[in-house]
């Protein structure tokens, strides 16, 4: 499957049908720091992503300094 990462935008390939949880572990990403997006949907850590699918791991962390964001 294709995994899209952001900031900076890049793509990695992960082989086989895998649980989201395992993909995150393999890429060393803390689950709390990303949304896992598949098409128009969000997917939970226990869901399986299939070989041909594309998922985006969108970071949720924002900001540097103070105030409005």
């Amino acid at each position: 499957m294709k995994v899209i990462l952001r900031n900076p935008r890049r793509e990695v390939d992960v082989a086989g049908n895998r649980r989201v949880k395992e993909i995150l572990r393999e890429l060393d990403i803390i689950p709390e720091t990303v949304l896992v997006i598949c098409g128009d949907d969000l997917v939970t850590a226990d869901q399986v992503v299939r070989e041909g699918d594309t998922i985006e791991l969108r970071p949720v962390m924002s900001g540097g300094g103070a105030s409005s964001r």
Partner: protein
Amino acid sequence: MKCRKCGEPAVLELRRHNAAFCAPDFLEFFRNQVREAIRKHRMFTRDETVLVAVSGGKDSLALWDVLIDDGYRTTGLYLDLGIFEYSVESKAKCEKFAAARGVPLTVSAVRDEVGAPVPVIKDVTRRPPCSGCGLSKRYLMNKVALEQGMLVVATGHNLDDEAATLFGSVMHWRTDALPRQSPALASTHPKLVRRVKPLYRLSERETAAFAFLRKIDYIVEECPFAKGATSITHKEILSRMEDASPGAKHNFLFGFLDRARPAFERAEALVLNECARCGQVTTGTICAFCKLADQVKRRVVS
């Protein structure tokens, strides 16, 4: 994973609440957390107009979305920081959001108010960009609110922002900063408006999920100066703690607010004056913003 409310397949797991939700029930959970924040801290009423500081990011636009849908009277405030492509794009996102919902948006440019955009202020002052930027933002929010006759400014600070700020303050024992950290800061002077943070009960993963599910077109790219900011380092540390022990961030922040913050409130109140230059509130004679603008003018002219 199933939704805690209705048993349908879940789209988001909230480990700190030991729950998972389907999309409609998550959106309702999110709105209820905002309502609870507004109620608990009496942030504002339906009779007032709320100035919502928007950056084009997920948090502030999610906040604005909830307030509009709940029938609050709002005006958006976009502060144009002049940070290259990031500012151009984030401004466009705010304008598009406001136009689609038919709500007013005020734009104020740091370049016009200080005399130079944030990247130039950074060079002139030789201080981290976030320092001049944060100072300008706080000042301009208050100024615009006063000019437009509004008594309250709402910002999109979430649980992670607040926990990271608290962490930073505690790491350096900035005891003067601790009492000022609150979901709602009352006005302590006629020229200081109330400042509230209705998202303080929601994590940034929750605000991102809300923005995504509501199809809010927000800017995913970060301000180029955010990289390397200490608050980001603190957020990363807190996220690791949260991963190991769900609820850690929540307990850290809420424990402080409920039990520790009162102990740091200063007995003697600060004396507040009006700046001799601009009339806004300061503890000195000339406010920090006017000093910054002076410094920029001297350097940019010479």
